[in-house]
């Protein structure tokens, strides 16, 4: 499978200490939900950052998607906490 570029925002970016990274997820990672679960299996700070999967949203190639939407074939996925600056 091709490499996947991840982007992190807000408190997620801060907890992880980076604004993104390139990963190579295993073949069973098919959705945003799968991706978040997979990342949450890593050691700290990932375990904490992804400890509440339902609070993590995602976007694929710049477009917001639902957490059960596919990331198959994606080159870039953004992950973030609940948005809104107002």
């Amino acid at each position, binding site marked *: 499978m091709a490499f996947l570029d991840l982007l992190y925002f*807000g408190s997620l970016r801060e907890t992880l200490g980076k604004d993104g990274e390139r990963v190579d997820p295993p073949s069973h990672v098919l959705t945003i939900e799968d991706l978040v679960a997979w990342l949450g299996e890593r050691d700290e700070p990932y375990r904490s950052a992804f400890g509440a999967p339902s*609070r993590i949203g995602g976007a694929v190639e710049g477009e*917001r998607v639902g957490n059960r939407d596919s990331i198959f074939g994606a080159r870039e996925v953004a992950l*973030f906490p609940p*948005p*809104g*600056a*107002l």
Partner: protein
Amino acid sequence: MIDIRIQAGDFDPGRQLGRLEELGRAAVSGFVAMVEAAEDVTEILVEHHPVLAKNALRRIAEETERNWPLAGIILIHRHGRLRRGERLAFAAVAASDPRHALDGCCFLVDALRSRALFWRKELAADGSGRWMEP
């Protein structure tokens, strides 16, 4: 007419309303979001990604346009460091029916609050910061 702007700088609500007034419709409804925060907060940081933010605002505007017969929609969202009392965002619409203008504007603001891809961190004078997440 849909106009979406994401910018670090300020904007002029009167001028933006004026652009909608010129459409000749009976109703122009607008909303200005300002930076209000607790006493110890000196400024806020609004984080965004240009493509993600633009796409999110475009979707919000398009959905609003589908739901109500509006002659114009303007959405402006600032990013970067903003002090208390500064303008943060703007939403406004023009319509022939006041009800459509009011409802369309409410929808825009609700969507800005829950779906616009911006993240807000409040920064205190002592250097500490806190992400504001719903």
